[in-house]
């Protein structure tokens, strides 16, 4: 339905939208600003917004005190590795559920999601013990496995909704053309579902990158990703706001940049299916 849009109305709504956007972004902005303050400025009340003594010493200290490159590498390997393995499992799984559903498919989907309904801490002790006995504590493999399993239900759900949109006829045409199941998945389904697969991949990388519960509990140093690196600055020595902020800024920078460049895909992924 058409309605009259006046200039004033547009201006008010635009301002409101910017305000909401700013509020959402504020914590990140505040964190970035704090990372350039001295520890003293970081604590001061009332807090100073822009007019403080700008310094990069926090970044230097953080670099000195801990091995950023190692943790960043761990994050890349665990987030990337768990995502790739999850995709390799989820694409065939979602394909089967979308194109050869049985009476129980809906139940299986819900059952998979139900694993996300329990707080992770509920299974911390058994998983910790299993990891200890298998020597997986503080290993990249261990983190990859736990992150992959944790995100798998969401990945399968997302891919399932994408695949549902692809006409079954086209896959059947490939089958009639003599394609085996592997070739059908590789040459027909995957290219057609590429936007969906890309946004699922991205979202999963972000989820795995920011996952803090399992990474904090199952790793300490050798395999510790950036989440552990941040946490190490809220340490027994007391809180160092400025250094914590610097560490956090360093930790989220890569994912922020990745997210910025793939905004379009991400938005499509998050709202997919809501409107055609």
């Amino acid at each position, binding site marked *: 339905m058409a309605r009259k849009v006046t200039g004033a109305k547009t201006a008010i709504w635009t301002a409101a939208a910017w305000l909401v956007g700013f509020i959402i972004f504020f914590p990140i902005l505040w964190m970035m600003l704090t990372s350039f303050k001295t520890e003293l400025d970081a604590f001061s009340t009332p807090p100073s917004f822009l007019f403080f003594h700008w310094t990069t010493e926090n970044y230097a200290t953080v670099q000195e005190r801990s091995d950023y490159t190692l943790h960043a590498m761990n994050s890349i390997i665990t987030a990337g590795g768990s995502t790739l393995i999850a995709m390799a499992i989820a694409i065939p799984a979602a394909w089967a559920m979308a194109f050869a559903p049985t009476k129980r498919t809906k139940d299986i989907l819900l059952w998979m999601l139900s694993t996300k309904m329990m707080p992770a801490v509920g299974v911390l002790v058994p998983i910790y013990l299993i990891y200890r006995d298998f020597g997986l504590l503080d290993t990249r493999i261990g983190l990859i496995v736990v992150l992959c399993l944790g995100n798998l239900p969401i990945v399968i759900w997302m891919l399932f909704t994408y695949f549902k949109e692809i*006409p079954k*006829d*086209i896959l*059947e045409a490939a*089958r*009639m*053309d003599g394609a085996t199941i592997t070739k059908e998945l590789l040459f*027909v389904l995957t*290219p*057609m579902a590429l936007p969906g697969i890309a946004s699922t991949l991205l979202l999963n990388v972000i989820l795995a990158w920011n996952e803090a519960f399992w990474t904090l509990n199952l790793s300490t140093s050798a395999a510790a990703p950036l989440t552990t690196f941040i946490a190490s600055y809220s340490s027994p020595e007391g809180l160092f706001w400025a250094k914590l902020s610097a560490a956090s800024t360093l930790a989220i920078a890569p994912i922020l940049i990745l997210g910025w460049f793939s905004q379009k895909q991400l938005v499509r992924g998050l709202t997919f299916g809501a409107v055609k």
Partner: protein
Amino acid sequence: MGSITLENVRKSFGSADIIQGASLEIEDGSFVVFVGPSGCGKTTLLRLIAGLEDVTSGQIRIDGADVTDVPPAKRGLSMVFQSYALYPHMSVRGNIAFGLKMAGMPKGEIDRKVEGAASILNLTPYLERKPRDLSGGQRQRVAIGRAIVREPKAFLFDEPLSNLDAALRVQMRQEVTRLQKQLATTAVYVTHDQVEAMTMADRIVVLNAGRIEQYGSPLELYEHPANLFVAGFIGSPKMNLIGREVAGQFGAATIGVRPEHITVARDGEGWEGTVGVAEHLGSDTFIYVDVPQVGTLTARTVGELGIRVGERVRLRPDQRRIHRFDTEGRALAA
């Protein structure tokens, strides 16, 4: 070679029997059309032959070999879908070549075959385009190209022309028929359009509620329908079916007379009735006449016939072309 044999093939989805024991012999090189009202199981039967659905019981043989449990990719058939089902991310060339690539054919040979198929179907200028840049008719041609290029044992067509406009449909109908004769490859074609069935088929399978009602050449079906269903389904306008006393006079439970086998006159012999509706098509006029004791009868007359609504007319059926059916609806011998 491409003969297809169905032996007592059944298909059920849950408790619903979609195909209730179909047996059929499709000869190599023939053009067989499955026709029937929607929901009669014609598409399911085609998909069973393709292997896209599993049979519940029975056997399917292609060239004598049992393929009941062979996956679609290995049956050596090709299919043209109602929705065309082109690969949207591939060019026309890629679409047509896909099956050959899957078969592992060398690139030079693929190119030669794809270009051959494209030239038969007038697609050569469009080879590098994507399906979304083509018109409906061109997409249809690509789908057919994809089917013929593999030189399959048989083509399966699932209502391929139903998305085209009327003029294009007539043109494609002729092209498909000509192409099939030229390639001499077995074709199984599903349609709900009896004009397509009559014009294209060597033999027609009439399906109703999962059963094969009759299998025969178009003229056999027209001249000797095996039962009431086929009698009513084949022919347009529909055959007039008359029951009660009138049929009794002919020694049958029901008699059928095609509209084109009724002579309309203002006087003389025959059933007397009032013209209820007259449809003037130019070449023909269909008149619907209310006859007391008999019902509404349709008669097909020449276009110029000056008969108006409300006039009283006499209808004389051609005695040699009266079809007689028993109480079960089966045709009685003449």
